[in-house]
């Protein structure tokens, strides 16, 4: 809903992502703030922010796949892993620069995701979710059992930092900028996808796949495309991850990580790109808080031990997912839009 007094007089205006001058100003200020972050906060926080940005890209992909197209995907971490491994192999074995490996990682992962999305030909709903679990299991098996000079086996692969015209992205600050730029591009792209023809087909299929099929949407193609796009985002995120950690191993991409990603879109809000980012920030911040408070907690309650922090984190996360689904299935973004709406129409009730 637009603020009072804002009317669209042309189609382009009606379709615009940024609708008012106030929104333009706050968007630009926000992006400026993000660019100035490394000068405002310490390196520890910058590292956390980089991880948030990387996860943000992956979760936006999941949001398109699950939140918009309604296809439950429990293999997003495996898709991310495919991207990370592709980038690592291309960079370390073939010496390709990062501006080639990142898109190629996305493409490779998209292909992997597309194959599993194709199973929509025969199955739907939770059966489709099962294929993504199988994807997760197969990814692990393949990485661990293919000849280790191909994909590194259980040792993982190390790679050189990304570099551009002699500038090496090896500090926390520089890799943060790389992640930030890629995330901005990918977020913009996501808005474009969900606003356009594909996004509308996704939403139609999510709401009722039988009905949308009768209205002329090619359901199978739409579902496969959703997996393709979701996996592409995961692949790009995975490639960034590879450059950030400079080491990929199979245990960075488990079913458990996939579930974390699902939790992020549930908390942020299904069917909203911004919601995906909000979910990432909230969940990652809580995760960080637990991890950084862990040693203190252990000091205060020595009987708990280090494992307890991990356990408490799980209890918190599981409880959060369940609580959100029971009390606010539409996530934080829905709450936010309620607040915004009541602010805009104040003092009237509706």
């Amino acid at each position, binding site marked *: 809903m637009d603020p009072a007094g804002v009317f669209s007089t042309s189609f382009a205006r009606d379709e615009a992502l940024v609708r008012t001058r106030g929104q333009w100003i706050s968007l630009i200020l926000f992006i400026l703030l993000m660019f100035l972050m490394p000068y405002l906060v310490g390196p520890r926080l910058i590292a956390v922010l980089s991880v948030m940005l990387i996860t943000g890209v992956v979760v936006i992909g999941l949001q398109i796949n699950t939140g918009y197209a*309604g296809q*439950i995907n*429990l293999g997003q971490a495996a898709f991310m892993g495919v991207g990370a491994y592709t980038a690592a192999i291309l960079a370390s074995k073939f010496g390709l620069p990062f501006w080639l490996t990142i898109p190629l990682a996305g493409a490779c992962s998209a292909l992997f995701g597309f194959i599993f999305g194709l*199973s929509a030909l*025969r*199955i739907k709903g*939770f*059966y489709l*979710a*099962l*294929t993504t*679990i*199988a994807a997760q*299991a*197969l990814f692990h*098996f393949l990485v*661990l*059992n293919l000849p280790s000079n191909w994909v590194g086996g259980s040792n993982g692969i190390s790679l050189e930092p990304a570099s551009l015209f002699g500038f090496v992205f090896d500090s926390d600050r520089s890799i943060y900028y790389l992640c930030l730029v890629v995330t901005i591009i990918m977020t913009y792209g996501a808005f474009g996808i969900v606003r356009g023809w594909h996004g509308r087909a996704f939403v139609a299929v999510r709401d*009722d796949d*039988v*009905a949308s099929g*009768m209205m002329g949407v090619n359901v199978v193609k739409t579902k496969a495309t959703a997996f393709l796009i979701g996996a592409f985002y995961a692949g790009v995120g995975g490639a960034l991850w590879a450059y950030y950690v400079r080491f990929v191993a199979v245990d960075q991409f488990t*079913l*458990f990580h996939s*579930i974390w990603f*699902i*939790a992020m879109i*549930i908390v942020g809000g299904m069917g909203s790109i911004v919601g995906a980012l909000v979910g990432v920030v909230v969940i990652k911040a809580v995760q960080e808080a637990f991890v950084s408070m862990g040693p203190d907690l252990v000091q205060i309650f020595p009987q708990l*031990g280090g*494992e*307890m922090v*991990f*356990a*408490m*984190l*799980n*209890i*918190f*996360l*599981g*409880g*959060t*997912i*369940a609580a959100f*689904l*029971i009390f606010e*299935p539409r996530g934080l973004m829905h709450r936010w839009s309620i607040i915004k709406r009541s602010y805009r129409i104040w003092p009237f009730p509706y």
Partner: protein
Amino acid sequence: MIDFLTYLITGALVGLLYALIAMGFVVIYRASKVFNFAQGELVVFGGFVVWWMVVDAGLPLWAGLPLAFVVAAAFGLLIERIFFSKLVGESVFAMVMVTIGLLILMRGLILVLFGPAVRPFPIVFPLQPIFLGDILIPRSLLIGGIITVIVGFGLSYFFNRTRMGLRMTAVAEDHQVAMSLGISVKRSIAFAWILGALLSTLGAVIYLSGKSLNFLASEIGMTALPVALLAGFESIAGVLLAGIIVGVIQGLVTGYVDPAIGASFGTVVPFVIMLAILFIRPTGMFGWKTIERV
């Protein structure tokens, strides 16, 4: 030949164990159309409760085991009361997502309640194997297999022939319709979760008897998925056959293919089977075909 028969029989018995775990899936699915991703965690929880009763509290087996089953049933009821009674009438999507939340929650809960250490599981069935000629059969799996078959046919009768079982099927079909016919949706779902928890604990007892236990044992929940899928999620007796098929294939692959390629292909065989079923016949062998209308 002896090798072949050993792989075959052990595979079939392991398959029956998968079938028992898969029954937990099917029971909850039959009664609420909810796909319980936390099945493996229920197994681990059941295992830890048995450990708690028999090893930690030092109760004798004849008192500790029944008590453990009572605790597991109470836990199943608790899950329903806390989560699923609030979701009556909500979409299946939300309920399945809650089971994913439950998976994570229980993992943490198990760590907090029982600690991260690897625990010895009590020896419920005698350890020495049975020799059939030259073929060696693990005793716990054999006894477990017999129990599984009995439980499978019993549950099948319950769901297809008794009033309570048919009620639960009606609830799975549509909450609103079931309610308007005077069926208590909450009670049916609660009963399904109690059954699921009990079956998981039984599975834990057979699976873990005489072995060690920590939260990684939940992997068996994911391995049992293909079994439930091959049977078709609605069929309980079919799970037995599906379990034997998956178990035998896995046993033979582990026996013959793994040494040849030098990799543990056997562990992913269930998932390969799962993908194959999903692509060829998603409703499984005995699943119900549904017709959808707008």
